[in-house]
């Protein structure tokens, strides 16, 4: 279960501001557990390091008292390695100073490991707690038996079980032998602690587990593992999706010093899913030689059926699509009749281009294929998919493939695809040597699984007093389903993201999905379709307010309507995917949406705005079953015409485990929202991506992000909601609305930099 390359105990101890004194040295007798983060030579993974209590795959208590907690989700900056282990330890009653965190390999025994959809805590909260509680129940049972007292009279805290009436205490380590002999209790016999006893997770500040290693350059990311005899591969991939190699002349590449092999990759077949992209790999002694070798390849390509993909023309196609009726997926009242009698109609079209995740770490993976077994080290969000895909490429069964998960230098959805892992597995076998596949930044931007390109048309019918009596929403985009099969337009599962779950106090509502063909690989991107749906909805509401000459906040609250739980019938839909969460726990709650709007505008002193040369914009959105509202203050700027000067964000994410990391995620959401809105955009010409590096695919730099970002997390005992993604969607419309308030220019298309001419 262990992955040797990821950070271990020292960083956690340091992170807790504990010294590395005798305690730490004395309790880590096992060398595998005590291993330092090794950006360097990988050591073989070691199963079951010491005898002890193993009530489940997530926790191990050694006779030494050391508690090993497995983090089965990938760390990509969201802080999951600093959250899941603390939650489990809190439930167990373990002292974090005596906890070792191990990163899980990809294995179904851990349940869902797909670190995507803001789901780690949202879906795993109870399971993680139960894993810790199970160990606690067994340790208490062992102590109670030894003392001949009732288990209910014992408690587990600070790494020990105590019996308060008789003031007896035994350390976890002392109880392991007895506890390990007991049967693992059934789920229903394991009682979770009351939330008030979870003292660490409710504290304001938890250390970032990996920070001490990160600031020393000692933490291992995908490309940082080194294997003996390892070669480096760089691949020339087909410039157009669906293209193929017609002819390749490797002679000049092979003449580059250090180049060892030139290997033609298998051409992918539709649907592309996570298959390698095809092309030609150059395998060399070092990365530089591989890059030079690739540049020397002479390849003739057949660009295939997507060679006509042109973003300018496709934009027109999408707009034509939303100007015609689509498939109605949400319907209440009689929209057509309401528009027929409307005193006034406010309508607009909105366009958002493809977006590329561009994590700072481009994809990279290391593979070794030996003796019918494949071992991989990779920064993957989805280790089980990587395992499956590597097995498929090699024709091995999955049990012959081991996926070790390194730290991810950002993911944002890009690394939930296994393509780069299966490339490494294929080349390692062909080259008969361990191989690191290194993507360059140009590779990352050219060969992405982009967020869907989108157009929307929204119309609102107003009565004589300005009240919205009908709402008509059309959206067209090639959905992610096109990666796995034929889908000519979004379905209800796609429109759950900010269209079907939109709380509206409007009697007549219709939403339609309009056709859009995929000419690129479409994939998950932080917040996914919510980015463009929130942009259009949040902008239109502001446009309605200005058409009425009223305060956008008041109009937003009026359209959301009074606090209430929406039934499916209210929404006019048959079912709601609801991000895989049950509606009973996570209903569409207009009251929570109202609350975040009220709190964020109070914090930003919305009513007293526009007195200091700044202009404000507001938007709110439900996604990943959380509720977020954003106010941005913008000022004129010499370089970019407008600049975000200050930001406020309020989020109701239910129970939060690590407030400090939630805070960090929301700061990051503001930055990513600014990047998407101001600069975002991948465009295609003749099927080829026009952008290639951070020069033309711009993202926010330090000066583009406000000095002051105010974070407000709504106190809640409710079930946990998503955190990583829900902060992003309201940023786009808040910025659009702020720019309008400042300049009178209504921008309905991302990136704003184009409309602003900067």
């Amino acid at each position, binding site marked *: 279960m262990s992955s040797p390359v990821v950070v271990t105990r020292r960083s956690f101890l340091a992170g807790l501001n504990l010294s590395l004194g005798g305690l730490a040295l004395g309790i880590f007798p096992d060398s595998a557990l005590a291993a330092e983060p090794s950006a360097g030579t990988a050591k073989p993974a070691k199963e079951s390091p010491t005898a002890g209590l193993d009530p489940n795959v997530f926790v191990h208590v050694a006779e030494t008292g050391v508690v090993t907690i497995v983090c089965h989700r990938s760390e990509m900056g969201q802080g999951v390695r600093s959250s899941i282990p603390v939650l489990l330890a809190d439930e167990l009653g373990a002292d974090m100073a005596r906890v070792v965190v191990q990163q899980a390999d990809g294995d179904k025994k851990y349940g869902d490991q797909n670190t995507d959809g803001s789901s780690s805590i949202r879906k795993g909260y109870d399971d993680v707690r139960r894993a810790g509680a199970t160990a606690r129940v067994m340790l208490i049972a062992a102590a109670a038996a030894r003392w001949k007292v009732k288990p209910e009279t014992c408690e587990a805290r600070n790494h020990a079980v105590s019996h308060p009436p008789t003031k007896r205490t035994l350390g976890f380590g002392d109880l392991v032998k007895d506890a390990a002999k007991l049967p693992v209790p059934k789920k229903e016999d394991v009682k979770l602690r009351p939330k008030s006893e979870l003292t660490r997770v409710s504290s304001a500040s938890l250390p970032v587990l990996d920070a001490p290693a990160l600031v*020393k350059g000692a933490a291992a990311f995908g490309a940082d593992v080194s294997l003996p005899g390892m070669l480096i591969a760089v691949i020339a991939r087909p410039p157009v999706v669906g293209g193929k190699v017609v002819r390749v002349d490797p002679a000049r590449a092979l003449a580059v010093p250090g180049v060892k092999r030139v290997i033609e990759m298998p051409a992918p077949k539709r649907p592309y899913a996570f298959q390698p992209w095809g092309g030609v790999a150059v395998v060399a002694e070092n*990365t530089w030689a591989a890059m030079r070798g690739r540049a020397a390849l002479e390849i003739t390509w057949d660009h295939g059926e997507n060679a006509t993909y042109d973003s300018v023309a496709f934009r027109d196609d999408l707009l034509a699509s939303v100007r015609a009726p689509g498939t109605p997926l949400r319907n209440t009242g009689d929209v057509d009749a309401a528009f027929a009698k409307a005193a006034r109609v406010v309508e607009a079209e909105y366009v958002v281009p493809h977006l590329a995740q561009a994590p*700072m770490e481009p994809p990279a993976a290391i593979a070794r294929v030996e003796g019918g077994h494949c071992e991989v080290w990779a920064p993957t969000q989805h280790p089980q998919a990587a395992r499956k895909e590597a097995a498929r490429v090699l024709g091995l069964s999955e049990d012959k493939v081991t996926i070790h998960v390194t730290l991810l230098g950002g993911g944002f959805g890009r690394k939930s695809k296994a393509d780069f892992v299966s490339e490494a597995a294929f080349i390692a076998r062909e080259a008969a040597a361990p191989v690191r596949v290194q993507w360059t930044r140009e590779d990352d931007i050219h060969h992405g699984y982009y967020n869907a390109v989108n157009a929307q048309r929204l119309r609102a019918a107003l009565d004589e007093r300005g009240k919205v009596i009908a709402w008509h929403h059309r959206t067209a985009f090639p959905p992610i389903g096109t990666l796995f099969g034929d889908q000519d337009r979004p379905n209800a599962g796609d429109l759950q993201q900010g269209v079907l779950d939109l709380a509206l106090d409007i009697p007549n509502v219709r939403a339609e999905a309009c056709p859009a063909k995929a000419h690129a690989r479409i994939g998950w991107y932080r917040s996914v379709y919510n980015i463009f749906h929130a942009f259009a909805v949040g902008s239109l509401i502001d446009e309605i307010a200005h058409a009425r000459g009223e305060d956008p906040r008041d109009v937003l609250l009026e359209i959301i309507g009074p606090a209430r739980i929406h039934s499916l019938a209210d929404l006019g839909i048959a079912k709601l995917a609801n991000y895989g969460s049950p509606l009973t726990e996570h209903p569409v709650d207009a009251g929570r949406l109202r609350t975040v709007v009220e709190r964020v505008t109070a914090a930003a002193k919305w009513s007293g705005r526009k007195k200091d040369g700044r202009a404000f914009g507001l938007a709110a959105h439900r996604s990943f079953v959380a509720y977020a509202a954003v106010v941005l203050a913008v000022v004129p700027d010499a370089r970019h015409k407008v600049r975000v000067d200050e930001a406020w964000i309020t989020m109701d994410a239910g129970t939060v485990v690590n407030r400090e990391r939630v805070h960090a995620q929301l700061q990051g959401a503001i930055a990513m929202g600014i990047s998407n809105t101001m600069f975002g955009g991948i465009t295609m010409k003749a099927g080829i991506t026009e952008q290639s590096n951070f020069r033309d695919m711009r993202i*926010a730099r*330090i*000066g583009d992000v406000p*000095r002051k970002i105010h974070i407000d997390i709504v106190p809640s005992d409710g079930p946990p909601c998503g955190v990583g993604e829900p902060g992003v969607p309201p940023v786009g419309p808040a910025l659009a609305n702020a720019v309008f308030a400042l300049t009178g220019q209504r921008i309905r298309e991302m990136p704003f930099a184009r409309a602003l001419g900067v």
Partner: protein
Amino acid sequence: MSARIRVNGVEKTLDVDPDMPLLWALRDVLGLTGTKYGCGQALCGACTVHLDGQVVRSCVTPVRRADGHEITTIEGLTPDGSHPLQRAWVELGVPQCGFCQAGQLMSAAALLKSKPRPTDAEIDQSMAGNLCRCGTYPRIRAAIRKAAGMPEEER
């Protein structure tokens, strides 16, 4: 060609293509993987190191340019993570994914060396070449101020 470079205080001889960017010599040949590849074109700053104390982007600095010079990487900033910036980075929880942070720290260290008490504008200007996709910029500013003994302001 054989280049002699003092890396983190240790004399190294590199027998590599003199055009090889220093980044790949550090990572692939010397095994110093704290310095990261992010763009290869001096656009993101993930590969930032010091050459004779000055900030350079190692992804566009050929080995021949470093011949006879002194290079400091994140591994050599301090051996134990005790630089005031490293301490501030940990205390304020700056890193999210952490991939860009070695480069951020090297840029910030050069800044504080030349301007021990930088203004906000100087911080933004000096750090403008270092991208962070996670958006840790507000905390980077706060941590630089903290390391400089100035009030952190907003986190």
